[in-house]
């Protein structure tokens, strides 16, 4: 049996571990400093979205969407996935041509999931939306899922596939023996493996820096607020073309508002906190688009820490410094939907050294070139 160590028990670590274990011939161990899903994996907004993604990750996202539709077959649970659509609203006449150009560019590459709809169709789909909307771009079978439920489904499936998950173990550093065996230094001593995956989220860039690999990320703490339960008025997840907003009504009636508004984070203390000015901004945008929530009461808010790369798409691929080490991090606030496909891609890279999954444009090499150019 080959040995593989996965650093980080978030969704990407769990998904990578699951897919690798299912390939056979691998003894896979996940090393998690706290507990699985502790940071952004367990507390993100749960958007299952192809809509409006960076073209470099649309291919992976399209594969992930098929996997979400089949999630019960993959992990034995649907993760609370509700395929009620994702909509990006045009709030002004200037927004519409931008959305149309975007959908056309996507179609040009052969993908047909993005559709432009007029004002009447928006009002039909979103009866409670403010009348100032002009139209929208929609992906009808995108949707949203329950992050913690998804984490637990991947955890369960991984364990059933033979993955060992160790919680409460901290990784201190990485090394490579002349034989090619990799050594992961932990607070419980060194562990050896043929392959290692760096899925350490906001802390992954620091691990790479420890072996002299330049993969810059900045920590990110996106804020979410949730209202008390309201009567059901909105099924799709709603965003805006011109403003930062992610808006959805959960299956219990609460309204979850996010959109990448940033709180403060502390990587050393592993905590993040809310920034109220930004939070107020998110609440105001939400109330302008859905007047029904203007008088709703906020019962809770939270943040989760993750990593953002300079170009806002993840780093997926083998280390340029340490062969046998594979990176998968820097999902920049939109990695939740990608997790089934990204895990499969990283697992293939680890087991076979190559993959047919469309991750070439996400390779760590792009930062090497950037560094050389600088």
């Amino acid at each position, binding site marked *: 049996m080959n040995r593989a160590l996965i650093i980080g028990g978030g969704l990407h670590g769990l998904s990578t571990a699951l897919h690798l274990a299912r390939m056979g011939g691998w003894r896979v161990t996940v090393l998690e400093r706290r*507990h699985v*899903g502790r940071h952004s994996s*367990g507390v993100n907004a749960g958007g299952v979205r192809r809509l409006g993604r960076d073209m470099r990750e649309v291919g992976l996202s399209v594969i992930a969407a098929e996997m979400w539709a089949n999630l019960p077959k993959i992990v034995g649970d649907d993760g609370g996935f509700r395929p009620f659509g994702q909509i990006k609203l045009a709030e002004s006449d200037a927004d519409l041509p931008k959305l149309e150009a975007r959908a056309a560019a996507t179609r040009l590459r052969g993908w047909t999931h993005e559709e432009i709809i007029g004002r009447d169709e928006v009002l039909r789909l979103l009866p409670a939306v403010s009348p100032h909307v002009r139209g929208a771009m929609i992906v009808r079978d995108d949707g949203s899922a329950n992050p*913690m439920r998804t984490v*637990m489904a991947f955890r369960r499936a991984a364990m059933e596939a033979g993955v060992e998950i160790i919680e409460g173990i901290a990784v201190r550093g990485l090394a490579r023996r002349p034989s090619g065996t990799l050594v992961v230094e932990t607070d419980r001593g060194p562990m050896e493996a043929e392959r290692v995956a760096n899925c350490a989220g906001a802390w992954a860039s620091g691990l790479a820096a420890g072996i002299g690999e330049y993969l810059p990320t900045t920590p990110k703490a996106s804020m979410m607020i949730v*209202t*008390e339960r309201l009567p059901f008025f909105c099924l799709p997840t709603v965003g805006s073309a011109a403003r930062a907003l992610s808006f959805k009504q959960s299956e*219990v009636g609460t309204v979850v508002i996010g959109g990448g508004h940033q709180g403060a984070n502390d990587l050393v203390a592993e905590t993040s*906190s*809310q920034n*109220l000015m930004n939070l*107020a901004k998110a*609440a*105001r945008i*939400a*109330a302008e688009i859905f007047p029904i*929530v*203007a*008088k*709703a*009461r*906020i*019962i*809770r*808010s*939270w943040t989760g820490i993750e990593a953002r790369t300079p170009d806002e798409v993840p780093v997926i691929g083998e280390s340029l410094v340490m062969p046998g080490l594979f990176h998968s991090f820097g999902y920049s606030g939109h990695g939740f939907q990608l997790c089934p496909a990204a895990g499969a891609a990283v697992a293939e890279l680890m087991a076979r050294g190559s993959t047919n999954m469309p991750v070439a444009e996400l390779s760590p090499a792009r930062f090497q070139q950037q560094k050389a150019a600088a």
Partner: protein
Amino acid sequence: MSVVVVGAGPAGVRAVERLVEAGIRPVWIEESPDGGGRVFQKPPPGFSRDAKALYGADAARAQAIHDTVARLRAQVDWRPGTLVWNLRPGPRLLNTQGPDGTTQEVPYERVILCTGAMDRALPIPGWTKPGVTGLGAAQIALKAQGLAIGRRVALCGTGPLLLLLAWQLTKAGAPPALVLESAGWGQTLRAAPGLAWNPVGALRGLAWRAALRRKGVRIHAGALPLRVEGADSAQALLWRDAKGAEHRTEVDGVAIGYGLKPETQLADLAGVPFAFDTLQRLWLPERDRAGRTAVPGVYLAGDGASIGGSVVAELAGTRAALAVIEDAGQPVDPLETDMIHRRLWLEARFRAALERAFPYPAAHAAAMPDETLLCRCEAITAGDLRATDAPEVNRGKAFTRIGMGRCQGRVCGPAGAEVLAAARGCAVQDVGRLRGQMPVKPVVMA
């Protein structure tokens, strides 16, 4: 120096009084429309029951607190009807929402949190039916508006509040049909020597008992409520006596409250370290005897820090104000602080004995039937929580949504921890405590 006092119960009133004496004009924020706190709850304007009828033996103290509030209002920045829903220790800011819904940032150099306490719930099947309320809530209904929660009322709880409410209802002409005291006589007797630390308080308890007996109200010691029955509202209470026999009593109102729990959310957001208190079986914010915490500029006083009752709250409020004055470099009288420390020490002995005599019925909470609606905001049963493999309460919350609703675990938290600890076979402190998030109570969005 900008000083903020949160809360206008006995602790807040005495803190503000002492600050004003030192020439400080604090911002004074109170969530309810007027001062006095829940213990000296005032009736709304237009109600005319006199202080003696409302507060009994504490009438003079209640009157003194109300008079002090009235006198101080003009000397401070008084903000009633205002909720403090967040505290940020870094920039030293409080976020408030006023009676008209407007939000504000209130800066502080030093803040004294006198946030008070709430009922400590014990969920039983049927506890969410109309007609069932908290013991403290039932007392407030009586004090504020002269209301009994029903015509045939069952009171379920433990300790002084249970007896006091039984007596107040009886005096008001609505004697309870059933009083269930969870503590057995044995427990109470074993703690009796400690209760002698406060002979007046202990004797008052005995006097209430005797008076209730004269009026024909019987207190069932060692008795616990099992289930509230009724189609649309409470119609009967199923309960178990000290010998284990089950009874069914027809009632139309049930008040349940097993002691009080401090409102510690602001201290939590401030980052004050918490420690598990084995006597109260609660996580409490750590502070020194003057009310100072490890967080610069944050002071705690009264039942919001640890349950001690209104006498302790008044002393602790004064002491925390003295700490603020002292820390600002002004002189304080060492004789005064020393006297307060001595009195607080004596009261703490009595309080410890009370906790031993009237403990939270943790085993009963831990054994609640699976179908019990543990988290009423999110409709999560005890069985739902037991079915998880959550090793601690935050993951119990993530897996089941328990504590994610409007109350944020303020109501179901302690009982939920008992259920989870019993399911895991560990001590209740080993399942940890819920991470606090702002807002501490719901705030209107825009």
